[in-house]
Structures are given as C-alpha cells and as structure tokens.
C-alpha cells in the first residue's frame, strides 16, 4: 500500500486512526497498541501477504535474542554475533544471494543461482533497525520485555517500508507510552501539514521530474546517443526527483507518526544546500548516516586510529552504505565514490584553505550529481554515456541529430532547484525540529520559520496543495527507496 494512494489515504489511514484513537479514548491503551501492530502487519501484507510470516519471524527472533542479551550473566558477545548473523543472513539471502552467485559464476564459469527471489519490502530498513537494537542491548543490557512495544518499534507502518531508520532508545520509550498519554492537537496539525507537504513533494514534484529523467537514463542504458543537454537534464532531474521522492516519503512518515502521537527522527535537512560532502551526509538520509557512523564507522575505529586508518574506514563504511542501497556494482561504486569524496573533503579540511561559498557549494553539488548518475543508471555503460555527454560535448554532426529538451523542462528544473536551494525545508516550515530534541538532525542547522501567517491562511494554503495532490493522486508512482 502506497502512502500516495486513495486506498491508503481514504481507506486504511482513517480506519487505523479511528481504531487506535477510539481504543485510546476508551482507556484501553494496550489494546490500542495491539491494534496498531496488527494494522501495521495488514499494511505490510497488502503488498504481498506471503512475506508477513517473514516479518513476524524476524521480529520474534530478534525480540528473543534481545531477551537473551538482557538476561543477567548472559554471554553477550556470542549471542550478539548470532543475532547479527541471523539478520545479515536474511538480508543476504533475499537481497544479495543472486548478486553474489552471479558474480562467482562469472569468475568461475559455473552456472550458480538460487532462482528468482522477490526482495521483501523494507527488509533493509527493518534489518538495520533490529541490528541497532541488538547492539545497543548488548552494550547496556536494557532489553525490551514487552513484545508489542518491540513489534511497533520494528513494524510501525509509517516507517516500516522506507524509514526513517529509528533508534531503539528514541522509539521504545515512546511506544511504551503510546496509547496512554493524551495527544497534543498542535502536533496533529504539524503531522497533517507534513503529510500534505510530503505527498506534494512526491506526487507533484518527484513524479513530474521522473518524466524528465527516465527517458534519458532509459536511452543511455539502451546504448543510444545522448546529447549534452539531455544528459544534464536527466542527471539534474533525477537529482531533484530523488530528493523530493525520498524526503517526501520521510515527511509523510513523520507526519503519520505524529497522527498516532509518535515522533520519528528527521531524515532530511535541505541536503543540496550543503557546502561540503561531509555536510551533505549530515543532511541527506540522516538516519542512515547515523546508523553507518554508529555501527560501522566507529566500531572500525572511526578517526581514533590515525588519519590513514580513518580514510580506510570511510571508504569501507561508504562502500557498504552503497551496497545497502542495492545489490549491484553501480551502487558499490557510488558508495566508494562518496567514500572518496569524504576522504578528499577531510584532506581539504586538513591541508586546504576554505573555498569561497559559491565554489564550495558548486563543487559539492556537482560531485553529488555525478554520484547520482551512477546511482540511477541500470548499467555502467549507461552511466558512462551520460557522464561523458555531460562533460564532453558531442561533435556538432552528432549533436544536431538530437532533440534538445524543451524550455518548459528547464523551467521546471529551475523551479524545483529554487525550491530546494532557497526555500525553508518542510521540517523548518512546520517547526517540527523544535518538537524533537536530541534527534540526529541536531548536528545540522535547521532554522524553523519564525514569522508565520495565521493558522487559517496556512490551512487554506495546505488546502490548495492538497488539491494539487489529489488531482495527481490517481496515477501514483512507486517510491524510489522502496527498491532499497
């Protein structure tokens, strides 16, 4: 079930809200939580009911391992290792088995395959969350003893499919109190506003940009010639499409969470305003960056073992981060490219002089766009075709045969670029950062809008945005991060 579908917005969501808040008002807060967990499983099963048992087994197994880790005198290291192997085993089978076997087969000449495997939706997200839970429990021995609380931590439907990747210490206390405490009407307003803004980012902006990006990448992947203008159009359109798509989903997730009285962490903070790649990763997919930092980079030694080791750690962390996005060499190279960017960025911080602001922004943005080409292209040759066309203008004879993108496409790009570079982001617009202290976005400058029009004007503006969303809603596009 997609957030941007009629069945979700006018069927599932109203019923889920009515059931949850109805039980809450009756004072049956445990029942309200059970209802929410069952509704989340229904939400997941709507996609493919065959994978519901997988999610239940994964949740139950991790809950049990957590209890073992929390037991007095438990041998935590081997239990933790068992838990991590279990989680990575599931992820490895569903996401990487065929990739691995295909590559081994290419090297050895053997025909190795485990057949077609359908990637369970959101497996990368709920696997990482549960690994984080096990690691934290192994560290401090504080396990969750309420199965429903733990289940909601993993399967709470707003973040189940595509994040944000939540942290047990910020979520479990909330689920413990869920259903028992009154809900602030102000947060409901913020939640509704974020839901509408997120829908608009996805349905109106990202899906429109997809129409500009997809043909270019399809042509390049099919070994067709792409002009310089088309290549830039495709690369830039995808750059903004991915941002509005994923940040729109995150806004919706946070907004939906608030409608149930749950605060989810901020996941995006105007990443394209970044002045360095280091800053970019503090603003882009913030909860993934936090996971990678806490559970890969720091355990590897982080920056505590000298500069050379730090750079190696960065490359390993980002390479694995790339692979997390998908089982493909383009994702690995994209991750390593960003690892390289971070190394160069850190070297520059050590030895270089600060760049003038426009130059720093331009270099960061350009590096990001180049990375997204690798990220989006289905094949290496497609990526190379586009990157070559972007930076090596075609010969006039070849260029004349190619239709230039129409002016309206460039105007669309200019408008979305202005929106993402010069306007406050959705979190700042609704002032959500204030309500979520100590979340991972506290390391980036979020400046909530202070001068606000009256609530009636805001409601009317959101009504207009909602109308645009509803107009575009009947033919929804898939969320890009569902693939990961």
């Amino acid at each position: 079930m997609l957030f941007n579908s009629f069945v979700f917005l006018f069927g599932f969501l109203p019923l889920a809200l009515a059931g949850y808040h109805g039980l809450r008002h009756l004072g049956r807060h445990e029942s309200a939580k059970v209802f929410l967990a069952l509704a989340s499983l229904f939400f997941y099963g709507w996609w493919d009911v065959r994978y519901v048992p997988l999610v239940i087994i994964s949740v139950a197994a991790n809950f049990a391992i957590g209890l073992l880790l929390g037991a007095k005198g438990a041998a935590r290291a081997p239990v933790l290792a068992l838990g991590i192997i279990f989680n990575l085993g599931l992820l490895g089978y569903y996401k990487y088995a065929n990739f691995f076997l295909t590559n081994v087969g290419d090297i050895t000449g053997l025909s190795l395959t485990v057949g077609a495997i359908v990637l369970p939706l959101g497996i990368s997200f709920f696997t990482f969350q549960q690994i984080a839970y096990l690691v934290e429990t192994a560290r401090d021995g504080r396990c969750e003893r309420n199965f429903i609380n733990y289940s909601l931590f993993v399967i709470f439907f707003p973040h189940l499919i595509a994040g944000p990747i939540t942290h047990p210490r910020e979520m479990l206390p909330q689920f413990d109190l869920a259903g028992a405490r009154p809900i602030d009407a102000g947060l409901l307003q913020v939640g509704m506003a974020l839901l509408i803004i997120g829908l608009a980012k996805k349905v109106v902006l990202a899906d429109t940009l997809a129409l500009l990006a997809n043909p270019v990448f399809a042509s390049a992947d099919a070994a067709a010639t792409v002009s310089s203008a088309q290549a830039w159009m495709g690369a830039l359109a995808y750059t903004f499409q991915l941002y509005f798509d994923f940040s729109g989903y995150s806004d919706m997730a946070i907004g939906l969470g608030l409608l149930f009285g749950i605060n989810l962490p901020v996941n995006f903070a105007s990443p394209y305003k970044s002045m360095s790649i280091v800053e970019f990763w503090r603003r882009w997919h913030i909860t993934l960056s936090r996971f990678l930092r806490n559970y890969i980079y720091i355990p590897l030694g982080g920056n505590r073992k000298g500069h050379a080791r730090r750079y190696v750690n960065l490359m390993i962390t980002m390479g694995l981060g790339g692979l997390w996005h998908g089982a493909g060499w383009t994702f690995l190279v994209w991750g390593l490219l960003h690892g390289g960017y971070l190394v160069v960025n850190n070297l520059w911080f050590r030895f270089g002089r600060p760049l003038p602001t426009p130059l720093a922004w331009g270099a960061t943005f350009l590096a990001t766009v180049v990375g997204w080409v690798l990220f989006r292209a289905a094949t290496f040759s497609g990526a190379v075709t586009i990157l070559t066309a972007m930076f090596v203008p075609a010969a006039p004879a070849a260029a004349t045969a190619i239709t230039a993108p129409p002016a309206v496409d460039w105007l669309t790009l200019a408008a979305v670029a202005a929106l993402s570079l010069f306007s406050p982001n959705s979190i700042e617009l609704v002032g959500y950062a204030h309500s979520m202290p100590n979340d991972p976005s506290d390391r980036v400058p979020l400046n909530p809008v202070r001068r606000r029009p009256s609530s009636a004007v805001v409601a009317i503006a959101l009504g207009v945005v909602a109308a645009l969303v509803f107009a575009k809603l009947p033919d929804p596009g898939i969320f890009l991060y569902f693939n990961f």
Partner: protein
Amino acid sequence: MRPFLRNLGLAAATAAIVLTGTLFLPHDRYIRWQDMRVEAYARLGWIYERIHFDPTPIDVAFIGTSHTMNGIDSAAVADAIMRASPASRARPVHVTNLSIPAYGRNLHWLIARELLENRKVGTLVLEIFENETRKAHPLFLYPADVSDVLNAPLFINLDYFHDLVRLPYRQLSLFVKTLWPEEFGLRRVFDPAHYDGSMVDNTRVVQVHGVAITPLRDRRMDPSKLEAYRRQRAGEKNLHMLGGRFDWLEYRFPRYYVTKILDLAKQRGVAVKFLYLPAYGQPDLPYDTSLYAGRGQIITANDILAKKENWEDIDHLNLYGAAELSARVGSLLASSVARQSQTSDVAAPQAALARREAAQTGPNDGTSPLSK
C-alpha cells in the same frame, strides 16, 4: 482539538473548491484530442483533424475498435463501392475509418458526435461484436467534455470514478498545454504538413503520423492456436454475469451510448449500418440483436471471418483478410452509397431514411434478414 478540526475543515473545503474550480478551466479542444499520444491511440488527433480540418467529403465513416481499424481499408472500400455501383462513379466516393483500439461505446459516442455534429455524412458504419461490451473505453477521459464525464451513466459504469478523479489533473494539464502547446509537442493550429491524409490505411501496418508502429501485418496465425484460443474464449464466455433477468442493467451502459449514437444519426438523417466484426470463431450474428433491430442493416462477412488463414491473431484480421473484407464491405455498401449520391440532401427526412432501410436487398447479399 477544536482549532485543529477547524483548520482541517478549512483545508478540506479549500481543496474541494480548487478541485471543482479546475473543471471550469478553459482549454482548446484540438489540443485535447491531440493529447493522447500513446501508440495507435494517437489516432484520436487524426480523427479530430479529419473531421474539422479536412474538407474532403465523408460518404462513409467507420467507427469501431481495432478490429475495424485493422480490418477495413478505406481506399479498398471506396474502390469496391465505385466498382459495384455505376451510379457512384459520377464522383469519387470518400470513405474514412475513424476506429480506435479497445472496445467501449462511450468513446464511440464521442467520435460519432464529433463527426455527426460537424460534418455531412452519408453512411455511418458502426462495428458490433457478438455482444455489447459492459466496459467503458479506457480512453474516454481524454477527448471527453467535462460534462460527458460528469453526466456519464453511473450504472453499471466501472470507470465512472476512475475518470472522475482524473478530471481535475486533466483540466490543469490541458489548461497549461493550451497556453504553451509547442512546449509539449502539440499544435495550436492545424498544419497540413503534419496531417496523415484523408484515408489512412492501418490494415498493412498500423501507423501514426506516417510512422509504422507495427510490422507488416502479413502473419497468419497458427490454425491450431487459433482454434485453441477460440475454445478457451468460448469456455470463458459469460453473457449474463448478473443473471439473464438483469440484462437490462448489465448492458445498460453500452445500450445508453449506442442509442445516443443511433438517435443522433437519425436526427441528422444519416444512414447507419452495423458491421459485424467479432473475433475468430464467434456465432454468425450477435446473441442479442434487439438493440440494432430497425435501426440499420447488419452487414456480415462470415465466410471471410471463417477462414483461418485470414487472421493475424484471434482478434484481428491480417492484411489478406482485411483486403477481402474491405472489398466485400464496399460491395455491400454500394447500393446505399449510390442512393445517397442521387439524393441531394444527405440529411434526408427520417421517413425517407426508413424507406431506404426497408428497401435493402435480400439474404444473399451478406446482410442480415434480422435488419429488415
């Protein structure tokens, strides 16, 4: 909680007003008909151009599905008419095929209305199958007026809400495209250089703007596969999904639009023929002919449809079958067209039209006795 509910209500009311407001946004009808540019559906733009910008007369117009689009070559029909009827040789006969893939009577109504309200037409040939479809045409929303969508029958119209919820975006999109059509690859004014011509033949290859979008349609389907498909379809056939007593409801939707087409044709004095062109292996006549009885002849060519070598696939004749069918249909239409050419006013009184229908020839000419 009260301010939250008040603001929620305000936002919902605003959204409703904006969505309703989109229905009043103006746009150019030519842009609307051009806007569908997917595969053979792009022929909608040509249909509009043929009706509105091409002064070539329309003596015979075909409206139907891909069966007619792939099965009727306008030029071959015109040739056959002129050969069969010396009276028609006094001036060229102009036949045009306004068929579009997929079956849905609501789109046929839009095309027929566009044609009959804007052009003098001699004979309208409406394709029929063994039974009327209960489904709406998937393209209906594209060329329809706002009022067509809003006033479409609700029962049983599985696409009513499908079309309704898409209307606001269509209106917004057409409004913008009307302002800057060139930016979207559309034309504000008719350009003869981009016109496909008065008679486009889609029996050999399906083409859009002179570009073939299918290979040469000369394939002959494996007879055993053709027969297997026929058996499969016969097994799946269900004419009375709601039970026979509720046929009036089950077939209300197509009957509504076919009746509108026939009423408009009658009002304009246009003779109507029904071309029976089902898929391979169907009965010799529609199961229920009550809708057509007394409204026009049913033209059949069952001997041509019975030849397995004439089929490209279970639904469509290949170019050989189409050539045979076009010649046959031309000869069957000849007498009717000849009479029209002798009649100065094609919008003849209804009584004269009825007399012409009654005077049609007998069972050996391929027409159904049921139509008399």
